[in-house]
């Protein structure tokens, strides 16, 4: 189990971004974090990725009552692609698996590029790719290390519908096959329902957990169940944000 306990995270001017955020993640669980823009979702991802250490609280991993030690290493996709422009697409992918033999890493990179439909661009530089293609490469890079934790920040935003469906299936397959724990940040509730086992709603900055919604296992491919869940969540959100009286639930 992974425990996220962030007591406080502040901007440099002292304004709080995250306050009293406590989340527990089961091994292999897929969790979507839904929050409005500017609520601190990306800051939370930076903390989970080990980039931002300027907060009070702790991240820990445990098995039952036993402490398993350090927070696990993660595969990360940022909101922007952040590919290294001086490395080819293949080199960008191989770079993030430093422990793996190069031939093995190249074979894995080739498979992942094929999965995202970009096998033909392995030898090109990121500057030669469109924004959408770069995002697909960034997703392949996040899936390269096969680590226990996968952090995806709005991975499918501004992609065309066939790509969205293909890449969503790819993410779900990797989570299932590699037993990855997924933290999936999005502002799209329908997307969250399709991907996650559990949806967590955060309040606007400072971010704090305001509601959790469990998604049934069989819902992901059933449009009528998705629509029903979506309707319920939207009504719940309207109540929370004061647009509907409580009776509507």
């Amino acid at each position, binding site marked *: 189990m992974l425990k996220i306990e962030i007591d406080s995270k502040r901007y440099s001017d002292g304004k709080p971004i995250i306050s009293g955020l406590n989340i527990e993640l089961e091994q292999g669980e897929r969790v979507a974090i839904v929050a409005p823009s500017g609520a601190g979702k990306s800051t939370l991802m*930076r903390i989970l*990725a*080990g*980039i931002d250490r300027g907060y009070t609280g702790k991240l820990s991993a445990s098995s039952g009552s036993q402490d398993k030690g350090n927070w696990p*290493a*993660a*595969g*990360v996709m*940022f909101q*922007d692609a*952040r590919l*290294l*422009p*001086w*490395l080819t697409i293949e080199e960008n992918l191989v*770079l*993030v698996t*430093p422990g793996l033999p190069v031939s093995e890493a190249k074979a894995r990179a080739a498979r992942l590029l094929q999965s995202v439909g970009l096998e033909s*661009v392995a*030898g*090109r*530089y*990121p*500057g*030669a*790719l*469109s924004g*959408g*293609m770069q995002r697909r490469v960034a997703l392949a890079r996040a899936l390269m*290390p096969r680590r226990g934790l996968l952090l995806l920040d709005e991975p499918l935003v501004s992609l*065309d519908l066939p790509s969205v469906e293909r890449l969503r299936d790819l993410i779900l397959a990797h989570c299932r096959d590699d037993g990855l724990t997924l933290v999936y940040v999005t502002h799209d509730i329908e997307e969250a329902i399709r991907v996650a086992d559990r949806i967590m709603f955060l309040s606007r900055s400072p971010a704090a957990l305001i509601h959790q919604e469990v998604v049934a296992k069989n819902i992901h491919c059933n449009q009528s169940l998705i629509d029903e869940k979506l309707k319920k969540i939207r009504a719940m959100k309207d109540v929370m944000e004061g647009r509907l009286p409580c009776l509507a639930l």
Partner: protein
Amino acid sequence: MSATTLRLLSLLLILLGWQFVVWVLHPQLLPGPLEILHRIQQEFAEGELSAQLAITLKRLAWGFCLAMLCGAALGLLMARYSSVNAVLDLPVTLLLNIPALVVIILCFIWIGLNETAAITAVVVNKVPTIAVMLREGGRAVDQKLLEVGQAFQLPPWQRFSKIYFPQLYPHLLAAIRTGLSLVWKIILVVELLGCSNGIGFKLGVFFQYFDIAGILAYSVVFAGIMLLVDAFFIRRWEAATLAWRQTPEGRYAQD
């Protein structure tokens, strides 16, 4: 027309222009290209030009490498630590504005008329320029890309060699280019003022005898070697390290 053809054409134009000026002026004031070529052959045959050239190139290599190492280290430290920048900004700016000649004379007075003084004078003159260029390079490093290395927990050496250092290439190349062109000019002045050998010293001797052909022969050979260094080392390194700025098709791909 290819870039190489254009370069050769440019060289031919310079030679034709030179010959034209020779026809207009008296050949004693400006010897023609063929006469200079003959003089170069003669000096090489006697072994004098190659010996002096080797001495100057050795000084240049030491001065350039030391200046690049010290300047780059100072510049990157200044970019990384604001306290280092606060301490070094004033002396670096001061050194940037002191005439090269003053530094050269002071080095010879303080250290003596020897090799150490010659190389020190070159290094002290060049370090501030390189430091300022690399400081700007260090400041321009994209922190978001450095975070990629952190997020994927890359080893420190890989973070430096694959993410940090490549971002400095354009600044490093600019520093090397301007560094070489400045260092070889400074080294000739250093040799003219306080050395008993080297190209600069020989130019001083030719000046005393008003030997214009000698001055031009040594200068042309030295400048030619610098051009070859630029063409065969710097340009090739630039092409290899900055290849990513060009797409294979020379255009951006579409989804």
